């Protein structure tokens, strides 16, 4: 293999990259006003956490194999995220039907 001599990334680099993705998602949640884009940024934060789990699973070998408990958790996160997106988008559609807007600064019914 011609690529075997190249260095491989360490666990710290994976953690840093996933932290950066999480921070970008957090920035999106704070900056954006469109509730659909906020929802997408939340999904991105979940995906960043998944990257951490998979990296830990690969770097912690059990009997010569990756620790599959971490990947199992990612599997369940993906499943729950799919259910969450379905319900969340249904809520957004019924919100739009009631208010004709999905901008968070125009949805102020609960403001005291």
């Amino acid at each position, binding site marked *: 293999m011609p690529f075997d001599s*190249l260095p491989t990334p*360490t666990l710290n680099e994976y953690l840093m990259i996933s932290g950066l*993705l999480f921070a970008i998602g957090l920035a999106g949640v*704070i900056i954006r006003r*469109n509730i*659909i*884009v906020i929802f997408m940024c939340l999904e*991105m934060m979940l995906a960043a956490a998944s990257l951490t789990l998979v990296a830990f*699973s690969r770097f912690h070998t059990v009997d010569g194999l990756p620790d599959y408990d971490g*990947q199992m958790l990612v599997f369940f996160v993906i499943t729950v995220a799919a259910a969450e997106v379905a319900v969340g988008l249904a809520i957004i559609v019924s919100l739009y039907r009631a208010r004709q807007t999905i901008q968070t600064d125009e949805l102020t019914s609960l403001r005291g």
Partner: protein
Amino acid sequence: MPSPLFYIFAAIMLIGGTMVVFMRNPVSSALSMVLSFLGLAALFVGLDAYLIGILQILVYAGAIMVLFIFIIMLLDLKAEENTSFRPAALAAGIVIPLMLVFQLTGVINNQDNLHDIPALELEQAAANFDKDTMIHKRLKDGRLPDTHLLGKKLYTDYNFPLQMVAVLLLVATIGCVSLSRKNSK
């Protein structure tokens, strides 16, 4: 996965994520999200998590993002393209994540995780499985039967959570139907 490939896919992922935040048009945001998740799936494959990588593409980049784009087009969100970001929100949205990143950098620099990725010992691991199973055969051949191993774990150790997820999906389906029903008498 060698470092250059890692940096290429990490850059694809992070650039896609940044475009999600700063694209005005929600459809562009959703398509950047697909790009970001493709990079993430490549990182998963680089970590020998083949099933999770494929699931990331099929479920996230495929199903979930199609659902998002479908809803964006259903609601016909075009009017907000000429509005700009609020300065206060923009400042908070840059400062708070930066603080998070600085904290993370501080913590990670103090951790001694600089050892290389541990090698997989497939032939030795084969001894832990029954002789006539597919997992044993694949491991003997020097291949990682990622899906078989995950499936074995899913249906033995994680059987109860799996059934709970089934209930959750049923509840989500019922919730969607009752939420999107027109509340006519």
